[in-house]
C-alpha cells in the first residue's frame, strides 16, 4: 500500500515537472548554466579530429568555440559519430550539433537547421591557369575521378562527350593523377581538395564549378526559436567580421564561397 502511494506521488511529481521542462527555452538554460554542450566529430578531418595528445581540433571545433565565445559561455565538446549525432541532440545530451551535418528533408522532420556555416560540395577542381567555369568547358579535357564516387556518377551523366573521364581506384589515385599532371582537372569533394592543399603541393586545386552542393549547418532541437535565432545571428555576424572566413582558410585552405 505504502509503495503504491509513493509510486503515485512520483508519477504526479513527474507529470507536474514535465510540462515545465518542455517550456523552458534552451537558450535560457545555456545562459543560466554557463555551458554550451556541442556535439563535434572526431573522426572526420578537417572538420573534426583528435591530436596525438587527444585534443579535439578542426573546423567544427573552431565554430563551436566561436559560438561559445560570442554567447559568452563555456563550451563543452561532446565527441559523436555520424550515426549518433542526431540522437545525442534529440535526447538533449547536447544543445547543438556542429558535426558537418548536411540539410536534407528526412533530417528536417526531426531537427532544425541553422544557416550554413561551412562549405561542403562536390565539384571540379584544377590549377589556377586552367580555364574551366562550367561543365561545357570540360570538352576535350581529361578529368580524373574516383570510380563509383558520387561525382563519378554525376559527371558521367553531364560531361560533354569529348571529355575523357579517367577513373581511379581511390582518392589517392585521383590525387596522384592530378599532381603528376596525368589529368588536367579532377572531380572530387572540397574536403579532398583541402587535404591536397594541406600538403602544400606545387599545384593547388582551385574550385572551378560545383556538381553537388550540400553545405554544413548547425543542428538544433525543434521548437527552440530563441536559440535558432541567436545561432543564425552569430553565423551572420561571423561571416561579416571575417572570423568564419578565417576558419575556412585555416581548415579547408580556401575562403568561404560567395554562394554560402
Amino acid at each position, binding site marked *: 500500500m505504502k509503495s503504491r502511494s509513493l509510486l503515485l506521488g512520483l508519477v504526479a511529481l513527474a507529470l507536474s515537472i514535465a510540462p515545465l521542462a518542455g517550456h523552458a527555452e534552451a537558450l535560457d538554460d545555456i545562459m543560466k548554466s554557463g555551458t554550451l554542450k556541442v556535439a563535434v566529430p572526431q573522426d572526420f578531418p578537417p572538420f573534426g579530429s583528435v591530436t596525438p595528445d587527444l585534443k579535439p581540433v578542426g573546423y567544427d571545433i573552431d565554430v563551436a568555440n566561436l559560438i561559445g565565445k560570442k554567447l559568452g559561455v563555456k563550451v563543452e565538446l561532446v565527441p559523436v559519430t555520424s550515426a549518433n549525432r542526431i540522437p545525442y541532440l534529440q535526447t538533449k545530451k547536447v544543445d547543438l550539433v556542429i558535426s558537418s551535418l548536411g540539410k536534407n528533408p528526412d533530417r528536417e522532420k526531426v531537427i532544425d537547421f541553422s544557416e550554413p556555416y561551412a562549405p561542403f560540395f562536390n565539384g571540379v577542381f584544377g590549377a589556377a591557369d586552367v580555364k574551366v567555369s562550367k561543365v561545357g568547358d570540360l570538352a576535350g579535357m581529361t578529368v580524373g575521378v574516383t570510380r563509383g564516387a558520387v561525382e563519378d556518377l554525376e559527371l558521367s551523366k553531364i560531361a560533354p562527350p569529348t571529355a575523357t573521364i579517367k577513373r*581511379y581506384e581511390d582518392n589517392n589515385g585521383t590525387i596522384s593523377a592530378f599532381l603528376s599532371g596525368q589529368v588536367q582537372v579532377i572531380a572530387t569533394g572540397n574536403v579532398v581538395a583541402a587535404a591536397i592543399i594541406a600538403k602544400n603541393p606545387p599545384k593547388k586545386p582551385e574550385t572551378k564549378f560545383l556538381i553537388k552542393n550540400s553545405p554544413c549547418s548547425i543542428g538544433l532541437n525543434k521548437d527552440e526559436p530563441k536559440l535558432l535565432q541567436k545561432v543564425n545571428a552569430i553565423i551572420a555576424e561571423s561571416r561579416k567580421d571575417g572570423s568564419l572566413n578565417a576558419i575556412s582558410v585555416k581548415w579547408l585552405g580556401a575562403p568561404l564561397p560567395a554562394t554560402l
Partner: protein
Amino acid sequence: MAYHFDFGAILDYTPVLIKGIAITGELIGIGAVIGVAVGIACAWARTFGPAWLRPPVSAYVELMRNTPFLVQLFFIFFGLPSLGIKLTEMEGAIIAMVVNLGAYSTEIIRAGIQATPRGVIEAGSSLAMTRLQVFRYVILKPALQRIWPALSSQIVIVMLGSAVCSQIAVEELTFAANFIQSRTFRAFETYFVVTGIYLLLAVLLRQLLRALGWWLFPKKAVR
C-alpha cells in the same frame, strides 16, 4: 542458396567488357613481343656481352625481379612526370610490362643459353661462323626451344598481372570489371564473368604460344 544471380545487368555492359578484352590483348601482345626481345638482348649481354655491359644489365634485372609490378607501374606513371616524362596510361602500362617481362625473360633465356654444351659452340666456330651467327643459330635457337614452356608461362603470368594496370585507369579487363561492379553493384556476377574471361584468355594464349613454338622449332631441328 540465398543469392539470386542476375546476369542481365552485366549483359548491358558487354561493349565495356569487349573493349576491356581488346585492351588486355593489346597490352600483352605488344608487351610480350618487345619484352621477350629485351630479354634476349639482356640474356646475351649477361652471358656473351662486354664486361662493362654486365653490371648495369644485372642491376636492371635484379631491380625488376625484386620489386612489385604495381610499384613499378606507379613509378613510371605517377613518378616519371616529375622528371618531365609524361606518358599516357597505355604507354605507361606497356613500358611497365615490357621492363617487367624483359627482366624475368632475361633470366629464363639465360638459363637456356647456359645449358648449351661447350662442344656445340666450338663446333659452330669450327664451321667458320661469325660470333653473331654462332649465337643466333647454335646457341639462341636451341636455348629458346629448351625454355619455351617456361617462357610461355611467364608471358601468361604477365598477362594476368596486367590486371593491376586498371589502377592507373587503363581501361583493360579488370578496369571493365570494377567499372561494371561500381555501376551495377552486382559484384559476384561481374567477377564471375570476368574470371571466366581471364581463364579463357589464359588458355587461349597458352595454346597460341604452343603453336608458335611448333612453328618456330620444327621437330627435327635439335634433338
